[in-house]
């Protein structure tokens, strides 16, 4: 299903359940370096479950299948180790952490990743410089960095904050779970700019979205339609437009 690029994320025959309910019923997906894919589908199709299972969120039972990132078996790794391998999840509902400043959170996270990779930690001054620049790119006020993580942030601010984390932590594979939901058009453009700035020959992006709207700004290499735990159709960016016009039922 991938283009001609070296495969980064490879998902084969993935089945997952919550309790007795099977949600992923055999997902196959391959995303190559430099590619951006979008998964679209109605509510309850299993899109967020796929994102969570890729990142190792507890509460899901994987009954069959394989997932690898650059050849590394992700399913054998703990969630923080998957992050260490370069996997990032942009949360649909970013979580509040009272009393922990955004700045402190990001620095702790970045140094944890560096430690996992055997790299040297970043000193406070260089980190601050890098963080401020990243925040400015996303048009975030400097005072947002001092506030507690996501606490009393508006919906748009939370999503922008996810983009800031992605920029600072610099993963190789970003899974963005409905990062566009709840954004007005200006915020959507800023988030889209953030995603486009992240894209590059050594990066891959998986966008999970309901709407074609985001795809006007972040043009995907491939679009997949997911219904009832399966990818039922794949195509290029035109598929998203077709979906928008005809609806899921007809396209599938």
């Amino acid at each position: 299903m991938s283009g001609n690029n070296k495969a980064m994320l490879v998902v084969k025959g993935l089945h997952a359940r919550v309790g007795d309910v099977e949600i992923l019923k055999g997902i196959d997906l391959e995303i190559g370096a430099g590619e951006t894919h979008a998964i679209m589908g109605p509510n309850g199709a299993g899109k967020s479950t796929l994102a969570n299972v890729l990142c190792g969120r507890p509460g899901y039972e994987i009954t069959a299948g394989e997932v690898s990132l650059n050849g590394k078996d992700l399913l054998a790794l703990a969630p923080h180790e998957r992050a260490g391998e370069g996997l990032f999840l942009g949360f649909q509902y970013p979580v509040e952490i009272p009393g922990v400043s955004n700045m402190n959170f990001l620095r702790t996270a970045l140094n944890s990743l560096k430690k996992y990779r055997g790299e040297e930690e970043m000193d406070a001054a260089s980190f601050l410089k890098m963080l401020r620049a990243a925040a400015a790119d996303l048009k975030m006020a400097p005072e947002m960095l001092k506030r507690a993580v996501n606490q009393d942030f508006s919906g748009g601010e939370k999503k922008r904050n996810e983009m800031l984390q992605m920029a600072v932590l610099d993963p190789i594979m970003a899974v963005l779970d409905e990062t566009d939901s709840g954004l007005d058009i200006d915020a959507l453009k800023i988030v889209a700019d953030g995603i486009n700035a992240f894209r590059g020959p050594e990066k891959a992006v998986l966008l999970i979205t309901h709407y074609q709207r985001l795809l006007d700004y972040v043009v995907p290499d491939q679009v997949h339609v997911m219904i009832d735990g399966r990818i039922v159709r794949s195509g290029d960016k035109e598929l998203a437009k077709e979906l928008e016009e005809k609806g899921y039922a007809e396209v599938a």
Partner: protein
Amino acid sequence: MAASVETREQVRQATEEYRFGFSTDVESEFAPLGLNEEVIRFISAKKNDPKWLLDWRLKAYGIWLEQEEPTWALVEYPEIDYQGIYYYAAPKSVEGPDSLDEIDPEILRTYEKLGIPLREQEVLAGVKGAPKIAVDAVFDSVSVATTFRKELESAGVIFMPISEAVQAHPELVRKYLGSVVPMRDNFFATLNAAVFSDGTFVYIPKGVRCPMELSTYFRINAQNTGQFERTLIIAEEGSYVSYLEGCTAPMRDENQLHAAVVELIVMDDAEIKYSTVQNWYPGDKNGKGGIYNFVTKRGLCQGRNSKISWTQVETGSAITWKYPSCVLKGENSVGEFYSVAVTNNFQQADTGTKMIHIGKGSRSTIISKGISTGHSSNSYRGLVRVLAGADNVRNFTQCDSLLLSDQCSANTVPYIEVSNPTAQIEHEATTSRISDDQLFYCLQRGLSEEDAVALIVNGFCREVMKQLPMEFAVEAQKLLGISLEGSVG
């Protein structure tokens, strides 16, 4: 290779959860085992007490014999055998050392291991621009060293072991000793009055802002020995001092008793900021051993606009029974209590504060953060009392509990007694857990589970931690992480 690193890490965690658990091999002199009038006379003679102090001790002992051990706290422990304790233990070499060279090198090494600078040049040789901190080091029943005394003296500040102050400044000690915590105040305070052997005395004269942080490090070392220290701090009109105490003890299988008394007196427009990082040995994973920490701390805001701020980070002790309090007598005086209490394994803490509003316009703030895990029990107990004559009093109380395991418990026991209708009293309390969502969010960003818990807990405690002097805040944060190691998962 990776496996051996991992194994070493596991061993380190298993053995070093309490990092101050070593003991020091020094020759000590003990009072005869147990407690009776002879033992009190022995301690009094060792301290070269004036007659008034011996009489004071004996009177307290007489009262103590009639008192009953309090049982109202939410803590359970086997009956303490008060005749099975040594009430005095002192390293033989330190009776009145004139310089550090006369102190047993083993003791100096102990403080080195604890990271406490006893040599003034060590402080100066540290990071450029680092603030100076004067230290009084109390080892079992005696003070072994007090630093920066000369420099403090030139500012008029008296900072010395209380046993020395009894000799050098008897008028001050006699005037204030027992003036805030009366000798018959409670069972443990009365016991302390009878047998206290050392502690710290601080006097800040009128208008002086103490030029450096003052601190006392308490170390219990000898076996079967209790530590009964007494701290007395007086801040005269318009003065300011920030004082910090730290406490550690070796890992021992039997429980050891620590019954201290702290008295603060603050005059017009003066302020005492009193911070505690309490890390006595908490006992092992099964609840064996650990310090019984029964402490009476009280400050008197005597003057107008006087202020006392208690900040405590309590991570140690098998049992903590402690209520640092403020008697807000002065008009517009201010009392603050900021507390973080962490209990793990089988630790039990019953801690809080009393704010007694006597003065008109007096205000108090209470912020208590309890974190419990393992099989531990963690209770906040607090009293806010407003007397009839105290107009326009304000109090704000916030008690938050964070539960990290299924077997621990948290309790909040607030008492509010208001006899003046103009008082404004607010009380808020919450109980929460670290949510799976919070944990996963941190893990997804690369934090290990233990780092994630430490980060979230530190966030939970931030309001209190930011009250600590900068140089101790980092230590206290690390301590929180260590205390909670292995508590989740």
